[in-house]
């Protein structure tokens, strides 16, 4: 089967998204991979929302921009999306809607009794069950399989609700508006063990497996799920989440908890990140490990809270006043969100500095089928701690928390351990942590803090996919990488693609090697200035070979757009 893409649209608050997710889960159980994109407005009820689902036998890395099927429960879903329907596609719509006669062209337009079935058999708000009946049949499910889905969804909501929903399902399923030629034939089979997950959930799970037991945060789209998930996990495993008064407090509390020795994190998006500049600098100055997630959305200011963008990078690269070391990791897939969160905690502890996990709205919020994350307690590296015996020799104070060492890393002593008493301060300080503005000391301490992450520049954190040895390399991170991957599969050009997993410190040596290998590197990113490209140019002192390809309208690049660019670069 080729990739199959359907859009389900309706009024926000009517369960459009959960309907889509139910179908995705059911298809994933049958061996398919799915990925969805949710389009929603910044309001709770009312307004249009739609979910676009791409289904394939192979891993899906981005949602397609043209659809085989639109299932419209409201007029806006048609108005907004009909032009994206493929020529051979079908628009199904609730027959209650007034659909203009001249809409169709060659495309098939079929009214369905969505509301009517719900109303007749149950209640009008059971429209979602109608939709599952119609779409479930189309995607090859037997009736009893769909019955299971409905039982799982409504089993706990009372016998009457369940009975009515099942009645709705039955009538919808048996509606004869479909025939088998309308959709590709779905060959259900049992595939590898899979999970349905989005980036934020993977980050929360990664944090738990990395031993993070403290999270302070302030709700914000599109990062809140991380706190929500940890708030569910921590009571089961012994950990604490705090919803603070603001992001300034969230990061300060994270710094406090980490200083005390707990692996700690916070998560936010652009507006919160701006406020967290203060805490990042504090953690940088006192060399306290913290992990901060920035799920980027369109800025500046409040921007477009429900739209994706990758425009916080320039700010984060230099975040806060003064200079200090920090690490920016940039996962591109849900699985990487999981793995790199574990890595973030290890790096934070080893290098005693803030680590930022940079995602974007689409990566953070798009549920998708992934190969199941296997159970494994990952290796934990907590960095340098002074031994208790060593500390006991300092019973009257004098433990050198900021001892100057060759690699800039010094041993920590956690509150509660006798002999380790010391001061930490956001003021410049000496080896004992005491305030000092002595110029020699300042130089030593600056070098200690600035150079300690230097070895990370040697990591090969740019992953080039299936090298074709072309002359051009397309590079991206976050959800944009998924689009590159799909485009590259379809492209007949010999353009190579890569994802970058660590932006700060930038893997300069590796990039220089790539520059020697390719005529041009096209950095594909979702912001106005081409921020990643700018950073690469600056860090490598090269301007000519780095080309920027940007989009900043709140939507992901489309596969077609990237394909066109790839063809252009091939000539």
């Amino acid at each position: 089967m080729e990739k199959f893409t359907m859009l389900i649209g309706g009024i926000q608050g009517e369960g459009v998204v959960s309907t889509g997710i139910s179908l995705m889960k059911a298809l994933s159980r049958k061996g398919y991979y799915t990925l969805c994109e949710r389009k929603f407005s910044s309001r709770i009820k009312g307004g249009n929302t739609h979910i676009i689902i791409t289904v394939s036998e192979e891993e899906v890395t981005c949602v397609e921009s043209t659809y085989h099927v639109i299932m419209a429960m409201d007029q806006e879903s048609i108005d907004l999306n009909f032009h994206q329907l493929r020529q051979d596609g079908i628009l199904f719509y609730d027959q209650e809607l007034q659909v203009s006669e001249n809409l169709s062209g060659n495309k098939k337009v079929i009214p369905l009794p969505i509301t009517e079935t719900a109303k007749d058999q149950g209640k009008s708000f059971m429209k979602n069950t109608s939709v599952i009946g119609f779409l479930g049949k189309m995607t090859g499910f037997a009736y009893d399989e769909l019955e299971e889905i409905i039982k799982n969804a409504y089993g706990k909501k009372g016998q009457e609700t369940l009975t009515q929903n099942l009645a709705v399902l039955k009538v919808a399923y048996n509606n004869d508006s479909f025939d088998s030629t309308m959709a590709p034939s779905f060959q259900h089979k049992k595939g590898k063990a899979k999970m349905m997950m989005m980036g934020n959930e993977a980050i929360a799970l990664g944090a738990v497996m990395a031993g993070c037991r403290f999270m302070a945060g302030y709700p914000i789209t599109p990062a809140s799920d991380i706190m929500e998930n940890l708030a569910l996990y921590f009571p089961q495993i012994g950990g604490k989440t705090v919803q603070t008064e603001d992001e300034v407090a969230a990061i300060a509390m994270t710094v406090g908890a980490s200083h005390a020795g707990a692996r700690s994190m916070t998560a936010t998006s652009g507006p919160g990140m701006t406020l967290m500049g203060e805490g990042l600098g504090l953690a940088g100055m006192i060399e306290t490990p913290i992990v901060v997630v920035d799920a980027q959305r369109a800025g500046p200011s409040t921007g477009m809270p429900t739209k994706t963008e990758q425009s916080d990078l320039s700010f984060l690269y230099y975040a806060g006043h003064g200079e200090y070391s920090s690490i920016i990791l940039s996962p591109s897939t849900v699985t990487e969100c999981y793995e790199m969160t574990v890595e973030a905690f290890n790096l934070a502890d080893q290098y005693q500095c803030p680590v930022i996990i940079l995602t974007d709205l689409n990566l953070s919020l798009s549920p998708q089928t992934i190969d199941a994350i296997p159970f494994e307690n990952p290796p934990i590296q907590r960095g340098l701690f002074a031994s208790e015996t060593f500390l006991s020799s300092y019973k009257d104070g004098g433990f050198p928390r900021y001892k100057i060492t060759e690699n800039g890393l010094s041993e920590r002593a956690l509150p509660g351990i006798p002999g380790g008493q010391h001061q930490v301060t956001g003021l410049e300080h000496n080896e004992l942590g005491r305030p000092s503005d002595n110029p020699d000391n300042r130089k030593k301490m600056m070098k200690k803090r600035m150079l300690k992450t230097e070895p990370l520049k040697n990591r090969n954190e740019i992953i080039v996919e299936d090298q074709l040895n072309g002359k051009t390399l397309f590079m991206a991170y976050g959800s944009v990488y998924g689009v590159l991957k799909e485009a590259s599969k379809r492209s007949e050009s010999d353009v190579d693609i890569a994802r970058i997993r660590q932006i700060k410190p930038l893997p300069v040596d590796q990039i220089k090697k790539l520059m020697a290998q390719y005529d041009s590197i096209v950095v594909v990113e979702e912001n106005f200035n081409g921020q990643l490209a700018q950073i690469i140019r600056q860090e490598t002192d090269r301007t000519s070979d780095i080309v920027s390809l940007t989009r900043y309208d709140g939507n992901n690049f489309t596969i077609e757009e990237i394909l066109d660019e790839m063809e252009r670069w091939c000539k």
Partner: protein
Amino acid sequence: MEMMDYGNGLNPTWCKGCGHFSVLRSLQTAAARMNIPREMLAVVSGIGCSGRISGYMNAYSFHSVHGRSLPVAQGIKLANPELTVVAAGGDGDGFAIGTSHTVHAIRRNINMTYIVMNNQVYGLTKGHVSPVSHQGFKTKTTPEGAVDMPVDPGLLALGSGVSFYAQGFSAQQDELIELIKKAIEHPGFSLVQVFSPCVTYNKVNTYQWFREHLKSVEDIRNTDSSDYIGAVELLKETKGLCTGVIFQNKEKKCYEELHQETKESNLVKETPQISEELFQQLTKKFSL
């Protein structure tokens, strides 16, 4: 333990006669009387003259950033509930840049203590109006005299639902020591506001001025400290100029009680491994 055991031998940078010396000594003495092991004491301060207090303690001390002593201190306490955590800062920290943290720390009621060293002026920036300066107070930024109404720390704390609120005076050290001790002993968030005169930039609210204006709560109160309305009236009647335990609600459950914290609530212990069974439980919502 003696008071001296909690010092680190550094000479404070405060001006001669600064009220903060007394706060430092009082904190050290209270810790000594309570026999708090030095390694179990975390002192977190903000920025300003007052912020320096943590740097003179032999304890795990944390000189944070302006206004943020409370979130940092709460983070430390939540991570390691076995520590005695004291946050300290000035009136700018507590009632200007960090006001919201003060209100929310009170609301959260974590078992810790917050000492506000109130001198009604920004000393370290060399004399600027503070959120608790009286109207008419002349500074470099208010040459015509302050116009804004001062914040009323006591009513702010009571209005936010504080479970322990006391006021002390640097020149009454014996009382201050006992107030800090009671505050630390209180199971929940305790706030001690100390009138701690600035001898350099506040020529109005001087030691002499406080001696003339301050009344002892014990002398004027007709109810006990658990009487909320009585506490409000006391602050109204004295215009806030009184010392002693103004209010204490021993019944109010603190964060630790509400969350049923146990020894296992210490998050600093060695990273526990997640069992396969637990992993399955955590990932159940993702399984198909």
